[in-house]
């Protein structure tokens, strides 16, 4: 599904990713763990197509399609979704309006017809109910004045609605208390399927108790330094990242 080969990325002249390679097959839930500054967030931004990142070498493919010459919007239409660590506020734009604009923009790029309003409303309401999001929240401006937990639930709602085939979860657990984390994780788990891959980026092992990965990759200084099963996360929880920092250096 996702194939990254020898990716080198700099920001303002500083090298952040240094020959990173990663393969995530369809249906796999892969976790990336690593210390602060290892390049985890940069990796998620580069995959999603944020500007200001200088890709000097390497390739990123999604379902065989080269992503690097595509805009963020085109990548979204190809089925790529990023759960933001810090979702942005958009004053004056009702959440419902935003959801509809996003869904229809993607459908348009895929040459699909706009979704009929009743179908759209039904889908949003059902997804909102599953995530314990009150209907009133959908009328409020996007993320404006939402608590950390509400913002993250709204991210998962968008994911459920847009049905990506590849989703990146960037520090889903940051800013969440244990109850909110459980609701979000349940929402994500409900979206696991044979066709959909997930890349779960996290600093702490805790999240992986709720979203159990198939594989765990350890990232340090801009590349993957070790890969293993879920047990690797537990090991990291005990030993910390110190070993890997020195190994990469």
């Amino acid at each position: 599904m996702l194939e990254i080969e020898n990716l080198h990325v700099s920001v303002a002249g500083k090298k952040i990713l240094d020959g990173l390679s990663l393969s995530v097959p369809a249906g796999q839930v892969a976790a990336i763990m690593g210390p602060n500054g290892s390049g985890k967030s940069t990796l998620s931004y580069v995959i999603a197509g944020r500007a200001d990142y200088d890709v000097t070498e390497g390739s990123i493919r999604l379902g065989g399609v080269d992503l690097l010459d595509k805009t963020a919007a085109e990548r979204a239409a190809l089925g790529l979704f990023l759960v933001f660590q810090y979702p942005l506020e958009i004053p004056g734009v009702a959440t419902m309006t935003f959801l509809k604009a996003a869904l229809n923009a993607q459908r348009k790029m895929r040459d699909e017809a706009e979704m009929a309003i009743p179908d759209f409303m039904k889908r949003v309401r059902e997804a909102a109910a599953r995530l314990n999001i009150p209907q009133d929240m959908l009328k409020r401006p996007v993320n404006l004045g939402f608590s950390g937990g509400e913002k993250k639930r709204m991210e998962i709602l968008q994911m459920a609605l847009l049905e990506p085939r590849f989703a990146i979860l960037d520090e889903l657990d940051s800013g969440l208390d244990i109850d909110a984390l459980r609701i979000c994780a349940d929402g994500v788990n409900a979206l696991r399927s044979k066709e959909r891959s997930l890349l779960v980026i996290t600093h702490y092992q805790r999240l992986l108790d709720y979203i159990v990965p198939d594989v765990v990759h350890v990232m340090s200084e801009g590349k993957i330094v070790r890969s293993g099963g879920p047990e690797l996360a537990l090991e990291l929880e005990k030993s910390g990242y110190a070993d890997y920092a020195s190994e990469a250096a």
Partner: protein
Amino acid sequence: MAAVQETVDKVKTLDVEAYKYGFSTDIASDKAPKGLNEDIVRFISAKKNEPDWLTQWRLDAFRRWLTMVEPTWARVHHSPIDYQDLYYYSAPKTAEGPRSLEDVDPELLRVYEKLGIPLREQEVLAGVQERRVAVDAVFDSVSVVTTFKEELGRAGVIFCPISEAVHTHPELVKKYLGSVVPVTDNFFATLNSAVFSDGSFVYVPPGVRCPMELSTYFRINEKNTGQFERTLIIADKGSYVSYLEGCTAPQRDENQLHAAVVELIALEDAEIKYSTVQNWYPGDAEGKGGIFNFVTKRGDCRGDRSKISWTQVETGSAITWKYPSCILRGESSRGEFYSIAISNGYQQVDSGTKMLHLGANTSSRVISKGIAAGHSQNTYRGQISAHRKAANARNFTQCDSLLIGNKCGAHTVPYIEAKNATATFEHEATTSKISDDQLFYVMQRGLSAEEATALIVNGFVRDVLQQLPMEFAVEAQKLIAISLEGSVG
């Protein structure tokens, strides 16, 4: 409203590079020679068979104008205007006002078709829509087609070109013309008073709620012709009227001067709602050739409990100099100003309002949203004042600016003056920038850079859009997207 909707649709189908309305037509025009002197003023007056008092009124204005100098306090810069190098009168060949559409020059109708204004479909327009829209189309200087007069007539509403009202309702024109914006008011208003071409006249009798939105499309067509519209709207006691104004203009090299005057008078318990969508040629990619728009718009809440509300969406013109204002004379009268001013490219906007509280218990509300993109400069300039007698005057002003990119500027210049200690004036202002994070977030959900910008901007201006008549609001929203094309990426 189908008319403007079609214009917008038309625009969307066209190339962004070339200005969509950039064309001129070949209708032979009947024009006065270039330049301005007393003879030209007399010529204009004679062309319209005006009564002596009006000719004299124009001449007084002209003589006054000769003693005045152009104001320079606004934050706009332009090459000097040579007032002797302009034409001050031009009229389409069909001098006699046509009785029906069949009598209208077909070339003219084709221009309107190009603009997407379905004059031909006016009957359909009437039948299809629940709320009817009457269109008094101004082509250059003479109003060519006036519709719905009969139905308005049944309600007792007078809606006609002001040149016609001078003859049919001289007592009203004489009583109110220049009573809100006196001939001595300012350089551009005085010039307008001397040479005004035509415009709309509206009178709503006591207790009448105007049965439809009144609408005018202005369009500049003749080369080098300054446009000097004059609009006069009177809402008699207890009446209500909503007036919509929208503009487009063709592309050309020379700068075009526009100096309109709009006067509104609301008597006791009357309400006037005046909405503008202004989309005049803003100039080319280097900022050359756009319209210079120096407009004086003022409303007089003359009667107690009267209300005047200005709503404007300003997207065009190279230079905008415009301060729709309210004189709150009647006790408990109310003034409102809702504005969206968007500047892109090399546009310069200096716009705002004045709320002059003269009477007791008067209130006003100002919501201004300025959006600057490209290399543009966008200034809000507002004056709120309370006279000594304006006990308990209240104003709330909210003034928000949004910057797109890093080569534009937004400026806020409030003047606040209270001579009565019981007045309560509140002023809130914010300046923000569309952040790269915000854009990326929206784009990650599937919207292109331009769609994402339009979405964020539409959110920013939502408070004001809600004040527009609904059909107008939908169009304005699309116009905002069109105006910002090329501002990101």
